[in-house]
């Protein structure tokens, strides 16, 4: 199979997942009537960003990025396609938020946080496809869906117990998904505070670990 005539299956699948994320992110911008009213006055930018945050960092094994000995890496960053697809719906959602009267600082804070997380998780996924797929998969599972699911489970199951609530709150700040979801129902923060949140630090650490592991693997190859 020629690399020019058709993409390797994992890359094609990844683009398919990005197309799915695009559809999910556009959906909250199209709803109207009772369905829209049920969403209340919350930020549509947050709703549009959640699918991208959840999917852009998925661990993928890309043969083009972990080639056999002596072959060249393609070097293409699939998350560039994701960002190209994500930007228009995200900007449209932010524009709708501003037109709906949301504070400019709050929308900027959400946008800054989303942009940072998308770049960090996307690059981490790219670095992982160069050989550190297992480490990345484990860390991504723990940070993105794991911490959010655990925080939600704890809040639901041990409601009212201070220690459990404290743990749930900490876990919720680690996952970018739950951090954004809390912003939807609570008070959004400013741009400066948004990019210094624990979820950004966790995503940056994920990228650093994946990059270091990929580099070590490249040296030993």
């Amino acid at each position: 199979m020629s690399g020019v005539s058709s993409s390797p299956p994992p890359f094609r699948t990844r683009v398919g997942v990005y197309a799915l994320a695009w559809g999910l992110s556009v959906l909250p911008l199209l709803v109207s009537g009772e369905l829209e009213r049920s969403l209340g006055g919350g930020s549509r930018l947050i709703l549009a960003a959640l699918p991208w945050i959840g999917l852009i960092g998925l661990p993928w094994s890309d043969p083009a990025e972990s080639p056999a000995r002596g072959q060249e890496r393609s070097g293409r960053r699939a998350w560039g396609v994701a960002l190209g697809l994500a930007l228009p719906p995200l900007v449209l959602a932010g524009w709708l938020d501003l037109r709906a009267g949301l504070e400019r600082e709050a929308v900027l804070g959400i946008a800054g946080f989303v942009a940072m997380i998308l770049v960090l998780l996307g690059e981490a996924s790219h670095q992982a496809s160069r050989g550190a797929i297992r480490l990345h998969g484990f860390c991504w599972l723990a940070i993105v869906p794991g911490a959010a699911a655990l925080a939600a489970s704890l809040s639901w199951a041990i409601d009212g117990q201070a220690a459990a609530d404290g743990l749930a709150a900490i876990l919720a700040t680690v996952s970018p998904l739950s951090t954004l979801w809390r912003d939807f129902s609570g008070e959004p923060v400013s741009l400066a505070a948004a990019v210094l949140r624990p979820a950004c630090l966790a995503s940056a650490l994920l990228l650093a670990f994946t990059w270091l592991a990929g580099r070590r693997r490249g040296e030993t190859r």
Partner: protein
Amino acid sequence: MSRSRGILAASLALAILGGGLRAQHRVDLVRVELTGPTEEVRLHAGAGETVVDISLAEGEQRSLMIPLLARGTPGPDGEPEFLGAGAEGHGRFLEGTRSSAPPWNSLAPGLRRRSLPTLGADRPRPGRARLALLVAAALVALGLRRRPAGSLLVGAVAAVLIAVLPSRPSTAREVRVIEHDRARERSLEVIGGRDRVSLSAPECGWIRCLPSAPGLWLEVEVRGQESRWTAHATGARLFFQRESEVSLPEELRKLHLERVWIREPGEAWCVQDGWNPAGSAPFEGREGGPAPPGWLVSAVPQGVRVLLGRGSGPENRTTWLRAW
């Protein structure tokens, strides 16, 4: 210890009051004399411009009441500054009428906010042009999937276009709320709208702008003896508030209420459609019907009879009534 508490309480009160006033602008009325020829006169009084759209022939004079945006805190603002009155026309300040303290200033800021109607149901729509651009950008970005940098570039260009495409002002209907305190015989009228709020005649009052938009300005259209003014602030929710001198029975006669909720002290809400509180028919509401909107019931007083109503008032506005 108690002194520290006092200082803390005073600081908190000042912070809350200051925050509330930042987004609030006083609307004063001034009488000006305009001399033609002119098509447009612009005035400034400290917090924003007023543009008067009036056609005057050469030498023609007209005395008008004009609304001006003054600073949020009551105080002497002086005469308005005439920024332009056409090529040769000019304007002259005659007298001013200052609006009173903000509506129901004796209430805590949190309680005053309850008068602001929700405009959430009228969220703006993306529009066909933006949706078409969104789909086109997605198709091109997917077509360039083997060149991620190209996809990113297409997405960025589409995003910029989506942000800068011109959009029509919101066509959402304005919402009016009338609050009436029967014990004190005081009424507060609030008219809310997106991007703009219009009134049939210049009136003193207060405008709350959320978020506080520096681009707030007033427009006065003068057609013959009629004048109509509109407050504009693109991208903001605007609420005009004024103490109303209209008594409740008089207001009820003008309103056509489609639905009425009544809550007696210690009881649940009862609802009846099409009941006229000013008429002679008794209220025969039932419990368990559609609940009144959350924003309308927030912070209504306890232990007294509360009447809520939804109807249509003048100028096809959805009107909400809240009386106790």
